[in-house]
């Protein structure tokens, strides 16, 4: 792959006595939209947290934009240009929507045009701009978590299961937002259980099982191969019709 933005080579992660990632290897090309798929407990969230330095890789190398970031502290990794949207959203409930976004804008203030773009993607955030994030609904919190990652241009956005537990109409908004981010040139690594959403967004797919990568390739290939889906993901046709 020419000039990969992110490279994981033989990454192992231990959490306590558990050996979660067992030699993860994959690359992400600049400008690509990669979906990380896998059953529950496959190690997808651990992979994102290890990239962010929230859990330390016990072995292996993580390179971002040509730099070895394996042992770097999380703030340095974030400052290098990686935004992270965790599975539990982690919006700051006691802070308003505005304050959440101001904090995510490392420059100290929000770019007005960028904010307008975010409002066009998530109108609810405009309506509740000065409300505490804790008073938002689950879907709105998820919108805010994604908006926080989009408030400034980032080289790479890591997103962990953004559609989990959300109503289909809101999932639709989110897919639209990710498409626009992708069109704007963002590189995205998305962990997703919802194969229908994943298929609509991803151009590359990486599949994990038991802490290892078991498949990588084009999303179109996997989407067209029901048998491969069944083997890798345990999906039946009716689950992603």
């Amino acid at each position, binding site marked *: 792959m020419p000039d990969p933005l992110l490279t994981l080579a033989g990454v192992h992660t231990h959490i306590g006595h558990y050996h979660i990632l067992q030699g993860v290897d994959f690359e992400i090309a600049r400008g690509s939209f990669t979906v990380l798929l896998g059953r529950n407990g496959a190690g997808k969230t651990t992979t994102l947290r290890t990239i962010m330095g929230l859990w330390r890789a016990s072995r292996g190398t993580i390179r971002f934009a040509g730099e070895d970031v394996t042992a770097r*502290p*999380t*703030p340095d990794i974030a400052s290098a240009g990686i935004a992270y949207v965790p599975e539990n959203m982690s919006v700051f409930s006691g*802070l308003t929507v505005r304050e959440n976004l101001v904090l995510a804008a*490392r420059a100290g203030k929000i770019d007005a045009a960028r904010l307008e773009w975010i409002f066009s993607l998530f*109108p*609810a955030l405009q309506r509740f701009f000065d409300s505490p994030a*804790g*008073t938002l609904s*689950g879907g709105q919190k998820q919108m805010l978590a994604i908006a926080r990652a989009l408030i400034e241009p980032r080289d790479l956005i890591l997103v962990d299961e953004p559609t989990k537990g959300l109503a289909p109409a809101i999932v639709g908004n989110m897919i639209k937002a990710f498409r626009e981010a992708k069109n704007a040139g963002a590189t995205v690594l998305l962990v997703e259980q919802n194969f229908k959403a994943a298929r609509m967004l991803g151009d590359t797919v990486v599949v994990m099982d038991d802490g290892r990568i078991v498949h990588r390739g084009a999303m179109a290939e996997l989407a067209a191969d029901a048998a491969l889906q069944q083997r890798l993901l345990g999906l039946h046709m009716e689950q992603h019709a």
Partner: protein
Amino acid sequence: MTDRIAEREETAVAAPRIDWIPILLTVGVALVALPLIGSFSTWMTLTVAALAMGMIIFIMASGLTLVFGLMDVINFGHGVFISVGAYMSLLVLWPLTGWVESPSIWLNIAVLVLCILVAMAISGLFGLAFERVIIRPVYRQHLKQILVTMGGLIIIEQLLHVFFGGSPITIALPQNFRGGLAIGPDIIVERYRLIAVVVGVIVFLAMMLVLNRTRIGLLVRAGVENPEMVEALGYRIRRLFVGVFVAGSALAGLGGVMWGFYQQTLTVGMGLQVLVLIFIVVIIGGLGSIGGCLIGSLLVALVANYTAFLEPKVALISNIALMLLVLMWRPQGLYPVVKV
């Protein structure tokens, strides 16, 4: 159906930001005490005394609640910064006795301000060293935190013994802060208590200003909720921890100065003596909540003063009973800080 759910999600209404119930509860406690006490002037004297005491407790406890909330550190050594602050005021009071005894209110105010500044600076420096040497090796280890911070407290207390001796030291209030002030017919309140209230209000407003109007404050509030996410946004939370610890120690030093003047006697163990009260306030208020800390301080002081007047024996357990009742009502404290 799903569209309807989505619509409901989209139009969720934001709840009001201020929870008035604990504030009204505090006012209610004061009002309920009035008919029980019977005399308005006595009630007023007790209430102003409680407000002064509450404000001093708030100053001493506010740093601890942030340290608790942001750093998840159980710092039993916090009390020693109160003692350090109180003793450091001697460095100003001894050479400037003339200012203390001066009839000029400006010189009296100047000596108080100097005491506060010196105490805050030196307590802050002690806090910096304490965080580096004692706290840093035991982050995320609560049991060890209790042991080593108690150990640190004992060491610094012994240092105070070495430099200032073991006997209690009497200090005099500046001339114009002595005695009472008539604020109504038959209502006389001690001047110093009014000053303590003013200082407490200034500290509270300054803290609210910093927490709500500055980027550092925003980071502290976010860090209290979810330090990991603050780091994932690119901020070095460890630096913030150190800053908050130093500020918390400096505030304890300020509280020590105010508490020392309140008692007019300094003992090395004075910080440890009020530590239990401070922990009660922090728990009642909600770990990490400055507003909760203020309301908790006032509530504790009001209940202690009223019960001491009405039923002195009950006063001995009034704070514990109050904490028990509050926790039965709100297990996370009056103003729980949502932690992720």
